[in-house]
């Protein structure tokens, strides 16, 4: 277990290097971006000094990383707000959205995948496979807009946009997130249907399932206790990999529903050329993904007795 945790460290270092150095490739001087049209040579020199741009790039990187470890991601160019504060406001929105979307996708996708495999070739199977193809093909933002059109504008069950914090009102919070989470979950749920169905079918072909039936286990027991349990290993691995897709998609979906999350912040900061914020948001999203895949990796190892002892 420890080894796996340690393997995440070079990964995180790699991610921070990519984020830091790639953004230094942006043409133009960051000082210009800060000053805009007010630039005078004297002011520029001062800003360059303030931003530490005169130091060697490795020193700048080191200071940046040291800052992150102390919870200081710098200030944004435009309003000089501390980026850490911005993240503190926006992170809960994105995490809550992603978790809700994952929850919907896992419950829906796994259920459909299991039913499809158990009744292979039946009506539910056809339905599940259709949903899987459809869900993979549907653009999340397009789906989001259609959801707004149907449920918010026409039926007026849910708000069209905006976010109510969890701490303020749980019911309203859920109402404000249900449509975006649905939009976000379509593609991910589609993958889960397919993976779950495939994993279940693979396990159902195994000898121990036949043996279970041979000793007179009920079909329910064969499916839940044995098939599902074995199929859960590949499914959990895939869930971890899919978190990246979900986090990436928040960039677009938060925009559709005007949610004040990290994804929306990333887009805004790119459009505003506010590079420290771009840097911070991309880093945070990548780190969240690394942590999620690590968690899935650890969980699927724990679920698999063949690997468990090697890790412990």
């Amino acid at each position, binding site marked *: 277990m420890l080894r796996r945790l340690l393997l995440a460290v*070079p*990964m995180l270092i*790699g*991610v921070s*290097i*990519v*984020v830091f150095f*790639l*953004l230094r*490739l*942006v043409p133009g001087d960051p000082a210009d971006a800060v000053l805009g049209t007010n630039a005078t040579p004297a002011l520029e020199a001062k800003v360059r000094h303030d931003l530490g741009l005169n130091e060697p790039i490795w020193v700048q990187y080191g200071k940046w990383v040291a800052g992150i470890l102390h919870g200081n991601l710098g200030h944004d160019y435009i309003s000089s707000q501390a980026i850490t504060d911005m993240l503190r406001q926006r992170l809960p929105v994105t995490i809550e959205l992603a978790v809700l979307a994952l929850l919907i996708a896992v419950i829906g996708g796994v259920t459909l995948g299991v039913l499809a495999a158990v009744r*292979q070739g039946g009506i539910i199977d056809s339905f599940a496979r259709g949903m899987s*193809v*459809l869900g*993979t*093909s*549907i*653009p*999340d*933002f*397009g*789906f989001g*807009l*259609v959801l*707004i*059109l149907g449920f918010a*504008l026409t039926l007026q069950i849910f708000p069209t946009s905006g976010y109510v914090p969890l701490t303020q009102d749980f019911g309203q919070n859920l109402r404000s997130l249900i449509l975006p989470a649905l939009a976000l979950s379509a593609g991910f749920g589609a993958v889960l249907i397919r993976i779950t169905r495939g994993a279940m*079918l693979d396990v159902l072909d195994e000898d121990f399932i036949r043996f279970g039936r041979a000793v007179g286990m009920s079909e329910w027991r064969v499916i839940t206790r044995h098939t599902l349990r074995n199929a859960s290993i590949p499914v959990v691995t895939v869930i971890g990999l899919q978190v*990246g*897709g979900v*986090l*990436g*998609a928040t*960039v*677009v979906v938060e*925009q*559709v529903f005007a949610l004040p999350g990290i994804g929306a912040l*990333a*887009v805004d900061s*790119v*459009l505003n050329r506010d*590079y420290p914020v*771009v840097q911070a948001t*991309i880093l945070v*999203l*990548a780190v969240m*993904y*690394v942590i999620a*895949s690590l968690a899935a990796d650890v969980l699927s190892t724990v679920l698999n007795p063949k690997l468990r002892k090697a890790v412990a």
Partner: protein
Amino acid sequence: MSLVATGQLRPDAGPASGPPPARRTRRRLNPSLVVGGGLGLLLLLVALIGPLVCSYDPNAVDASAALHGPSGSHLLGTDELGRDMFIRLADGYRAAFEIGAGTVAFGLLIGVPLGLLAASAGSITDNIIMRVLDVLLAFPALILAVLVVTIIGAGEGALILAIGIAYTPVIARVMRGSAMATRRETFIDAARSRGAGTLRIALRHTLPNSVGPLIVQASIFVGVAVLLGAGMSFVGLGVRPPTPDLGLMLASGRDYMTTSPWVVIVPAAAIMLFALAFTLLGDGLQTWFDPQRAR
């Protein structure tokens, strides 16, 4: 660029073509392949022929015709500036094919040699390449694409490069995995025993045997790339207006969707059909190349 895209649409994937060659008795046309291939071909026809048969100018603003519903004169209605939706859709599909084909071409051009190199060269080279790719894969694809766009700016070319870079590691991994699998085959040993060099084996034996998985992956990526690209255009990080693009059409239509739902539904459905075609095609090709796995 379009060569790669049409390469996905194998002649025998179209619904009008005859039965597959007799020597491929195990490989059979399957519904996914036929429907996906046929739909893809149809959309390609819309993109290529649409502008020829439709007399409207995709950028001609006509305030008097704004937000007209679908009718005889405007097949799919008009948008908020009175532009014909069908011609913009056709142009949007052209852009989609360019983005899809360009992305895949880029991914294959960089990813295949990288994967081959990792599989064929020593373990040190392999490790270095794979660790670097791992770091790139640690970014959600869309986030990596956003990062690239930040550096090189928005636009169709930038979008192709951005999504291409985001997916290159995946292609390289598929290539490497497939090369590693074929490496254990006896014909590779036979070639090596005949004194064939590493490069020769990689190009003459490993690569041709990895064509199946690569084509499947490429087909899936065309759909995924267009979904991603449309999303990025939608939030303003992709194709710039006034270029007709399906994502942009959605973005500009959203303000009018209460009164004129078609301005949103048409481009959303259009993107979905495109992705559907290539998802099905990918499924179908998978079954085609690996009939035993399919069920």
